[in-house]
């Protein structure tokens, strides 16, 4: 029984194929570029090709992420907080606290042993402290995203960024460059500043080990380190955790399918 989870995020669209609610068959990723439906379809197509199954063998599709309602060929949609919680516990069964940092938002949640969200907290109105900030810094400092972490981890005296704004922080970074702060220190400062913001959310929810980081920022080892240092806890991380919400969606899809006992018809786009 194969179920698909699609996480239609603001920055990137992530997908997974899951077999019997247990085995990850494939993961896929594509930039969303404002068109989640197309991105979702592309991710699905590629995954199906990769593992060589017929599209029809994917029996249930559950969407999540900001554009979860936009994708017509779904059977169910769930919120990305619900999904991330499930996904994190799937990857690290001991998880009781999840931090999710994506391109535009950061959230913290506490979860039960089944991955059910017990309490959560997110920033609503302001994108400060989210991945977009990292992207802009990368662009400005001309360091590709993947090369940020090694440089940041070598920092001797990380320089924190005080500006709250994901856009205006650039100016502060300019000043740091002007003051000849080493690149590594600026980069690590960026991650530590994000961690600081995430930590406030985490405290609001209540921190309980194990803590798992999910979302795009998990790709950066420097972010994992920064979060661990700031919150003074060990942080589970795994590159598959970028797909945590997609995994969670696939899992919930699986349990729905089991409950129903048969494959339902797809919902068409009901609302945005």
């Amino acid at each position, binding site marked *: 029984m194969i179920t698909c989870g699609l996480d239609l995020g603001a920055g990137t669209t992530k997908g997974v194929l899951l077999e019997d609610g247990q085995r990850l068959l494939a993961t896929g990723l594509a930039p969303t570029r404002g068109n989640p439906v197309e991105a979702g379809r592309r991710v699905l197509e590629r995954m199906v090709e990769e593992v060589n199954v017929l599209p029809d063998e994917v029996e249930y599709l559950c969407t999540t992420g*900001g554009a979860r309602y936009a994708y017509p060929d779904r059977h169910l949609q*769930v*919120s*990305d*907080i*619900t999904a991330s919680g499930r996904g994190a516990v799937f990857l690290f069964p001991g998880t009781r606290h999840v931090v999710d940092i994506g391109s535009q938002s950061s959230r913290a949640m506490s979860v039960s042993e*089944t991955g*059910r*969200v*017990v309490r*959560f907290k*997110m920033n*609503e*109105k302001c994108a400060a402290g989210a991945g977009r900030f990292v992207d802009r810094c990368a662009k400005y400092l001309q360091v590709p995203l993947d090369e940020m972490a090694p440089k940041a981890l070598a920092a001797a005296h990380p320089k924190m960024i005080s500006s709250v704004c994901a856009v205006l922080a650039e100016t502060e970074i300019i000043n740091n460059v002007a003051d000849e702060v080493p690149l590594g220190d600026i980069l690590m400062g960026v991650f530590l500043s994000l961690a600081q913001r995430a930590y406030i959310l985490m405290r609001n929810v209540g921190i309980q080990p194990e803590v798992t980081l999910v979302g795009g920022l998990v790709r950066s080892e420097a972010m994992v380190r920064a979060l661990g240092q700031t919150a003074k806890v060990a942080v589970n991380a795994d590159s598959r955790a970028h797909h945590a919400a997609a995994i969670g969606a696939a899992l*919930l899809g699986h*349990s729905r399918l089991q409950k129903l006992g048969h494959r339902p018809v797809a919902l068409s786009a009901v609302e945005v």
Partner: protein
Amino acid sequence: MGEELGATDIVPSLEVSDTFEEFSRAPSLEALIQLARDVVSDPTWPTVRAWTRSGRSAVGCFPVYTPQELMHSMGLLPVSLHGGGESIEISHADAALGSFLCSISKSTLELALTSRLAPFRAFVFPYICDVSRNLEGIFPRAVPGATTHMLHLPQNFHSAATVPFLVAEYRRLISKLEKAGGEPYRPERLAASIELFNRQRAEIARLTEMKRLDPGKLTLTESYLIRRLGGLLPREVHLQVLERVRGQLEERPSRPKDAIRVILVGPFCEQPTLDLLDLLEQVGCYVVDDELLQMYRWYDPIDPNGDPLENLATAYVRSTMDIGVRATPTTKGEAILRRVEAAPAQGVLFLTAKFCEPALEDVVLYRNALDRKKIPYLHLEFEERSAAYEQSRLQLETFVESILFD
């Protein structure tokens, strides 16, 4: 200040007859609700214009506990002010009031500064919080010529001196209202008004009880709109509306769906937008008890015998509900647990107006009690003019899913 930005676009849309017949004659429940929706969303005060057309005066009442019975008995139309809703743009009020304040205070001032409160002769602000209180202090300059009054609402609910003080306080108000187009105060007329309001509140209580027992019968928004009319229409008319609604609802079939039962705590003063209220039920909640529009529900029946002014004051002291702007030390936690049990509800939705400090502070006390009993809850903040509900939807769905999926 002085120039009239925005005032130019006040174009009265809805017209209401000064007999308010259309409300008691609406052909169906749906038609009535549509009418209510139109009236509530019209920033040009159609019911107030209808009332004042024959030379009568209207009083704007800021939430929560204004003694509307008293105004009614003096031949005035008490109208609940709930800010500007989604339709108005804040461009003047921020400057006068500051940015870190609830929407209702800002948009109420914005209405004043753009001459949209011209149909009113007087305004009453109760001391429910520092914002309401300070707003009163800057209001007269915004609506020159109108009377404004700050009503001190006592917070000592145990002193023998409180009722006499509140009676004296009401008398201050009376003398102001008499100068603002009110007929002279007469106790027997107040007693009659109290009886009328008792009947109106009893009907509202029936309506909310119906929603509690059979939440598929009417939506939260429907129930809200019907209640909200009470602050806009003459009370006699509203009573008729309520009685007809009761009859129509009895015949309406219930359409139950798979939803969780929650109680809604926090919006006792500023009111969420209709879209947000819709959203609560769309994502799969049944709101079986709420704090919306406290002003029409603040008393048990008021004793119609004896000195009516004293009875009105006693009612405030004895039987107002535990909301954020009424001091109830050491019992807040228990109160929320009782309400959850009485509903009965599976969870609590805290929906507080952004920057509403009294509500924010209570949430913590409530949360502590709910945590002890492991009752799920969600806290959201709302603003009048936030058209983006995606973040609220996300959080609401997560909350519902956390209860629905195990």
